[in-house]
């Protein structure tokens, strides 16, 4: 078994054995493959790139070509134990609708995203006056797929607006280690390169369809 990317390993650690899992934006399927082999999960994936999808299916994974923005509405409510959206929400057209769907489809949702509030990004914009480029967000403003970048504080506010309950929040640092964090404190928003949230729908969640 290949070693997982550290942020994916942190997500995997949150998933109980034999859970039913939907990985949205599953890429080359490495997380799904790991979860199937190591935790015996019933895993499914959605992936935008047809090339990635075909490679996943050829490796025996259940993956469908699809788009988080358009294809989540057709899933019934509360059918997966965990729905994962890893490093993808910032590339969706409507992060609000996507998050609402995650909370509806899954009993729990795991969302990870790059933190646009990181000090190096803030400093880069201040010092250079150009849209920041970092090793993990290495795109020019005009050709980036990341059309809805946010900070940890922004995401925490959206989750609150959706009535979601944050069970765990992890800050992912430069040294590749994760730290538990309070989603509303200023420190992680300045120092974390990315964040991972484990959420579930709260009592005042949007109506299920």
């Amino acid at each position, binding site marked *: 078994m290949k070693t997982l990317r550290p942020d994916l390993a942190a997500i995997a650690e949150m998933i109980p054995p034999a859970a039913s899992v939907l990985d949205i934006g599953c890429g080359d399927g490495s997380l799904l493959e790991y979860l199937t082999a190591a935790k015996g999960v019933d895993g499914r994936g959605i992936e935008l790139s047809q090339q990635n999808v075909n490679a996943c299916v*050829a490796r025996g994974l259940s993956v*469908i070509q699809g788009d988080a923005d358009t294809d989540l509405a057709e899933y019934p409510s509360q059918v997966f134990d965990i729905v994962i959206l890893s490093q993808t929400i910032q590339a969706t057209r409507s992060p609000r609708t996507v998050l609402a769907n995650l909370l509806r489809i899954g009993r729990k949702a795991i969302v990870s995203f790059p933190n646009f509030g990181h000090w190096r990004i803030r400093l880069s914009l201040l010092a250079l006056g150009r849209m920041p480029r970092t090793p993990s967000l290495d795109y020019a403003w005009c050709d980036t797929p990341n059309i809805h970048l946010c900070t940890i504080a922004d995401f925490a506010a959206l989750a609150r607006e959706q009535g979601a309950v944050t069970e765990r929040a992890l800050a992912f640092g430069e040294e590749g280690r994760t730290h538990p964090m309070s989603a509303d404190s200023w420190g992680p928003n300045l120092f974390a390169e990315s964040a991972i949230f484990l959420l579930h729908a709260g009592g005042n969640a949007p109506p299920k369809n």
Partner: protein
Amino acid sequence: MAETANPRFLRTPVAPGGDPGQAYDFALPLRLDCGRALAQFTVAYMTYGTLNAAKSNAVLVCHALSLDQFAASINPLTGKLGWWDVLIGPGKAIDTDRFFVICPNVIGGCMGSTGPAEIDPATGEPYGLTFPLVTIDDMVRAQAMLLDALGIDEILCVIGGSMGGMQVLEWASSYPHRVVSAIPIATAARHSAQNIAFHEVGRQAIIADPDWMGGAYQRHGTRPAKGLAVARMAAHITYLSEAALQRKFGRALQNREAISFGFGPDFQIESYLHHQGTSFVDRFDANSYLYITRAMDYFDLAADHDGSLAEAFRGTRTRFCIIAFTSDWLFPTAENKRIAHALNAVAANVSFVEIETDRGHDAFLLDEPEMFATVRGFLNSAAASRGVK
């Protein structure tokens, strides 16, 4: 009650060395969707590989409109290689060293299974148009009875393209507990208006041929060869793509330097289509073509479930892998994806693969390494889930 025998073919085999396969004669009735029943019927079929002791390694292959049970071996009637020889065989994506492959000829067909060209035991005459209309559901019901007869309860995988894919969907919907995994390829859960339209052109070509004789051509000793050839020519265009036709033929002329200012086959594409038409007439029965195209036209899985395709699959535990081809305009990606969406709506285990090719609908019969890799990976995973080595 029933017995296995050599199949009876309508024509004499040209490749007598080819394995003719088996035929199962059922002495019990096959009830049909049209309300009638066949009091007795025969299913001709081929098998490849060996059924394991647990009877857990069976793969059912469903054939398309104009094909037959000779999926992976020399067709004794044409002498040609099996139509899915690229996919099925020792070490291939459907590995006959591991899996037991069964490919039956559909009811209504003309390769040994009961169809309109066979003798009606009640009259001693060929059925012709007295043969009842059959549906995809009927074809599948006959296959289920064959598997019962062979003592196979659970199918590891049911796979097929085009009309074969329709049978795959019907199998998964009608016998969910018997189907571990399903691979519908280049297909749809309903026949579209455009597809019905093309079929009607083909049928009218056959019916307009004076040699069709109201369907009783066997009794009159004639054969509607021209009509059937035209039907095949029109259909064959729908199996290809504009890009592939242009790439292969363009405006190239056939054995001549210049256009002839006449109606002979000036262009290579015309000559190619003529060849497709005439070679088809040698191996296919015209009435069978009418019946099977009609079965496809009638196929609408959602209609059988109050208009909801998702309902056709509610509660299913079957794993699905749907495969579509980018240039297939007969069963386009959107139709295949509709099936995937319906399966998602009932939280079924579904994969969807679209393969980039310019070869149109017929791509599913061709050397498409991405399709082979998909089938191999998916089938291995299904086999692992059932402990099939």
